[in-house]
């Protein structure tokens, strides 16, 4: 169904809903009263099959809550918006019907002090209760860090909630400092012995309050944050931020820059997937495969370093284009090198699918069903391995992706092996896009100077781990009033427990590796 028909239906069902065009004919804003939000979101998510991508809370002169939905093709994007006076801090919980909104509401409760009525588990989330008391609400404009730090009242008696209540049940704690070079995250695995019955990841040990730091800063400063809050997917996030700013400056990004953006986004995807595949091989203890994939990951990093100067592509994407141009000869050379990498990976793949001891560890392990993936609004390779596919490069093309021909690999089993196969196939598609980009690279500049005006920009990019959304509100002086980051790791960590539960302890690190999650990207 087309977005306009959905809008007409919505107006019939909810007489109070006001439909406005947000920024293009394919993006509509449904404005409604707070009490209608839950019903409207339920209808869009469960009846109209929209994918829930996130919640943006803004404290302007009034509360503004925006629930973001995205659909396939002509279904476009819908933003359900509601407003309330600032003294009103209670809203109905949307997550009762739209489970994907669960963590978004918990985050808003912790950072803004909002209460979502009907939500089953508020409290300890971003600010840990054993470090901060409840009600700190650091994202509120009235928040004063100095007095907050002086009046800190940590709850030293805080203990995690136990769910499994049978004789012999115990909790296995892991982290935040564990293993060799893992990111900091804490797991509480409830068990009665061999099987993990309940997996509870406690995140946000790395909370750096990126959204808070960004407030009041200039675009030039915030692009550094956008790129450095998740260093392993820096280019994608810098691109998303740049695109959000470009919407506010109505600049025409030169064609050459758009094509090169696809090229570098795919180079990043290739490198990131090689790292994830390396992690999977390493978690199963397959030494030669680990070394072989590690060689390829390093080669991809060196390729990026040789081309762009920086191994993780920092400092490249800027609002208006790219910070530098590249000569066509070195781009062609890099295609040859990327081909070599993918060819070597092909050989490794042939050996992997022939190694039964490896397959035994990932096949039928860590299963996520399609319906579960949809309920949790999962994104990226994890969702596509379960047959749930919402790739922004396809459904909301940006940069030059609408001119590229490529497939979006998907599987249906939803186990570790399906996730590995999706990653392996995506590296080949990335190479295909890079080849097309270099073959059809137009001449011309790579940067247009522009000045952004006040307003709201919202851009979505398919990062290697899945869809990210960057919401930017600029004030009259060109400084950020609100910067909201909806990241794929945040979305997928929410669903991670589904895969880890009801499998044995020794499967846990392998399931974790097949998810390829980033803690930094989640914690922000």
């Amino acid at each position: 169904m087309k977005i306009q028909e959905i809008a007409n239906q919505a107006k019939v069902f909810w007489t109070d809903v006001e439909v406005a065009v947000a920024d293009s004919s394919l993006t509509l804003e449904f404005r409604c009263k707070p009490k209608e939000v839950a019903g409207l979101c339920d209808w869009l998510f469960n009846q109209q099959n929209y994918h829930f991508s996130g919640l943006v809370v803004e404290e302007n002169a009034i509360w503004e809550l925006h629930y973001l939905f995205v659909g396939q093709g002509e279904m476009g994007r819908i933003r359900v918006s509601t407003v309330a006076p600032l003294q009103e801090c209670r809203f109905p919980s949307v997550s009762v019907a739209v489970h994907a909104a669960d963590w978004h509401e918990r985050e808003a409760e912790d950072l803004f002090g909002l209460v979502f009525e009907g939500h089953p588990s508020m409290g300890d989330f971003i600010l840990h209760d054993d470090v901060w008391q409840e009600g700190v609400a650091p994202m509120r404009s009235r928040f004063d860090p100095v007095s907050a730090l002086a009046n800190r009242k940590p709850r030293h008696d805080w203990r995690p909630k136990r769910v499994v209540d049978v004789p012999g049940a115990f909790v296995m704690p892991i982290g935040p400092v564990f293993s060799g070079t893992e990111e900091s995250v804490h797991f509480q695995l409830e068990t009665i012995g061999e099987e993990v019955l309940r997996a509870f990841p406690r995140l946000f040990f790395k909370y750096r309050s990126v959204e808070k730091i960004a407030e009041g800063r200039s675009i030039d400063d915030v692009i550094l944050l956008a790129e450095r809050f998740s260093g392993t997917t820096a280019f994608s996030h810098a691109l998303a931020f740049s695109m959000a700013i470009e919407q506010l400056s109505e600049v025409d990004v030169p064609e050459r820059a758009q094509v090169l953006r696809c090229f570098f986004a795919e180079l990043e995807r290739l490198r990131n997937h090689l790292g994830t595949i390396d992690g999977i091989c390493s978690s199963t203890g397959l030494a030669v495969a680990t070394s072989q994939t590690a060689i390829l990951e390093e080669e991809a990093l060196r390729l990026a370093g040789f081309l762009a100067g920086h191994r993780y592509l920092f400092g490249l994407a800027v609002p208006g284009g790219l910070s530098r141009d590249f000569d066509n000869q070195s781009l062609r050379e890099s295609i040859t090198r990327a081909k070599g990498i993918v060819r070597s990976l092909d050989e490794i793949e042939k050996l992997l699918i022939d190694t039964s001891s490896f397959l035994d560890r990932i096949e039928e392990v860590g299963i996520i069903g399609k319906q579960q993936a949809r309920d949790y609004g999962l994104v990226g390779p994890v969702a596509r391995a379960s047959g749930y596919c919402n790739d922004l490069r396809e459904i909301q093309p940006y940069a030059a992706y609408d001119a590229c021909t490529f497939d979006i690999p998907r599987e249906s089993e939803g186990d570790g092996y399906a996730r590995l196969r999706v990653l392996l196939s995506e590296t080949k598609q990335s190479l295909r896009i890079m080849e097309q980009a270099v073959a059809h690279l137009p001449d011309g500049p790579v940067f247009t100077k522009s000045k952004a005006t006040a307003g709201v920009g919202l851009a979505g990019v398919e990062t290697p781990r899945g869809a990210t959304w960057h919401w930017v509100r600029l004030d009259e002086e060109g400084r950020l009033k609100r910067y909201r980051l909806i990241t794929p790791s945040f979305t997928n960590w929410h669903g991670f427990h589904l895969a880890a539960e009801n499998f044995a302890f020794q499967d846990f690190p392998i399931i974790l590796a097949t998810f390829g999650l980033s803690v930094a990207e989640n914690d922000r």
Partner: protein
Amino acid sequence: MSRWVIKGLQTGVVTTRYPSGEETTPGISPGLPQAMPSYDGDTRTLIARCPTGALHRADGRVVVESRRCLHCYRCSRGIAKPISWDSGFEWASIREGSAALPATFRRSIYIRVVDAGDCGACLNETRLLNNPFYNMHRLGFFITPTPRKADILLVVGPVTDHMKTALSKAYDAMPTPKRVMAVGTCALSGGIFGPGFVTGAGVSDLLPVDVEIPGCPPPPLTILHGLLVLAGRKSASQSTKPVSAHVNEEGGIR
């Protein structure tokens, strides 16, 4: 299984010749801006372009405080007179008063890595030290999961509020003699995140730092250089004083 063995043998040796030989392969390092005795462009413009105040003017020279550099390339791209660029990687410096581990440790050093809020890049570069290109085992460096047998605490990230307890506990659990290595701009100065209400201004707020590794992120070879400095097998690029206030001539803390 034999096919894996053959595959491994076919690959041959890819390991770098560093530290006994040179390593100059393109793409191994993002480089750092270099101090310039005579900069012939507009110094004020150059310094103003740096978002973190890593560039200063001292005695008519442009000096670089590498522990604040983010590799944003604003001093080298889109400017008429770019700053000169050091494409090497031996940037590890030792704090005044600190020394390498005793000689008995030289060929067997255990490292506990603690992620205190990094973005993933510094940690990834540290992880890559185990790959065949760098293979730090050959030099006697091992990553250990337990701080109780660690000699070096390698810290990445600006030290977030939630990680302070875990980081202190890891340090306290280590036997003496022990050394602390701060890896990356965030760990050295808080980077772009700190100091803030949940982020510190680097590791030295909490622990005594011995070796500083600048870079955003520092490439694996720079981290390796730092490890070799602590093993007493390489000399440091310089010795540094503890963190000073970052005030540049043009005004205020950036």
